[in-house]
């Protein structure tokens, strides 16, 4: 198939300004099918903005973003169709509070993808069982813990059968003991061959899950290396300093 020739995601020369602030300053990034890329960088360097641009939640000022060869253009008719190829999970718990877990998950498959209720439910069941939350299908989001909510949010995105998943610090707002259960789900997804672009501050997890690390600083890509190489031998001083902040040594 012709499609297979394209990278799953291709970002080139991406620039994004908020007023006079240049938040993304010529970002180039490709993710091929089945690859897991982790974006690292200090707070405010533009990681969330990059992910939001990729699925068209923010307009871009210059450059292009292609999903499977197709341009992401804010406001275009193709955007809602393209978004179904992109699953996104946010840091804030973003489940719909007026719908129970099952309805949260099946709403988009039924209304957006026009799939049958039974079929969507069957897939939701299978996914919920996989993350151990089938028993909670009738519960409302407020009845779930933070970790459970994020696992449901992942399932909700997966139920659209996306071709690439974007994760924006999905464990950052969680209590420490709940981080693990969410990361395990992501790790399993990665091992299952899902294409993933992950923003995280969990260094050990990044190291375990990533094929490649992209280090972002002040809106620019400073490093783009295989994971092992980045952690063992970062090229830039900025990246070294950044990694240093996660190390604890007895004085």
């Amino acid at each position: 198939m012709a499609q297979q020739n394209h990278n799953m995601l291709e970002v080139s020369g991406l620039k994004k300004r908020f007023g006079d602030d240049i938040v993304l300053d010529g970002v180039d990034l490709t993710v091929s099918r089945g690859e897991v890329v982790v974006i690292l960088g200090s707070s405010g360097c533009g990681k969330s903005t990059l992910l939001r641009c990729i699925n068209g939640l923010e307009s871009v000022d210059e450059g292009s973003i292609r999903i499977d060869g197709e341009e992401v253009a804010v406001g275009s008719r193709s955007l809602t169709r393209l978004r179904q190829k992109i699953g996104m999970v946010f840091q804030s718990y973003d489940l719909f509070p007026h719908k129970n877990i099952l309805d949260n998950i099946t709403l988009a498959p039924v209304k957006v993808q026009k799939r049958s209720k039974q079929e969507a439910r069957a897939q939701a069941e299978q996914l919920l069982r996989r993350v151990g939350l089938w028993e909670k299908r009738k519960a409302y989001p407020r009845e779930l813990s933070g970790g459970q909510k994020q696992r449901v949010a992942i399932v909700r995105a997966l139920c659209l059968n996306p071709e690439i998943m974007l994760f924006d610090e999905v464990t950052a707002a969680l209590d420490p003991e709940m981080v693990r259960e969410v990361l395990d789900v992501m790790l399993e997804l990665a091992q299952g061959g899902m294409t993933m672009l992950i923003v995280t501050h969990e260094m050990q997890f990044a190291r375990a899950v990533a094929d490649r690390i992209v280090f972002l600083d002040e809106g620019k890509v400073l490093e783009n290396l295989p994971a092992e190489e980045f952690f063992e031998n970062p090229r830039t001083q900025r990246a070294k300093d950044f990694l240093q902040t996660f190390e604890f040594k007895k004085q």
Partner: protein
Amino acid sequence: MQGSGIEVLFLGSNFARLLEGLWVTMRISILAVVMSVPLGILFGLFMTLQNPIAKAVSRVYLEFIRIMPQLVLLFIAYFGVTRAFGWNWDAEFSAVLVFTLWGTAEMGDLVRGALKSIPQHQYDSAQALGMSRMQTFGYIIIPQTLRRLLPPTINLTTRMIKTTSLVVLIGITEVLKVGKQIIDVNRFRYPTASLWVYGAVFILYFLACWPVSVLAKYLEKRWR
């Protein structure tokens, strides 16, 4: 001969007249509420527009309606307009108009507040799931907004029912006025009539507002 006051309620057609008076009150407030809710929703949406002219216009309207006592608005609509333009609006029409203008302003502000209280990430995650703008509003934003709107809207409705008693001052014979007439006619035969008549009016008002709050409780539970 002096009789017990309670008999007054059932003398002749007195009770029927009281009910008729209540119906006048209800008719005015129901009409006003039925028009205020959709108009208020539109006004609330209008207020959320980023356009500075839309903001200024809605601000002035809201402040004007809020600052003016409803009684003054009623007088303007009924006496003022007749004098100034020679239009002869019927009192009930003036009352419905004023209460609709008031209800629209208050409802609009409630809608604006409820819409603003829906966090941005609800819009974002709906869109990230591929929903169109229409779908985002239809399935995510509006249902949540309605849930938040329910208690204050019920509150506004009962406030409107109660405030309609002001229309007596532009000559509409509503329930309180009927009550007063009955008391006046029976002043000497039944000196305690006022207690019973006003008691009956009190209960009628309660019966008018109570189903509204029962409905609200029911909906709140169902929508939880």
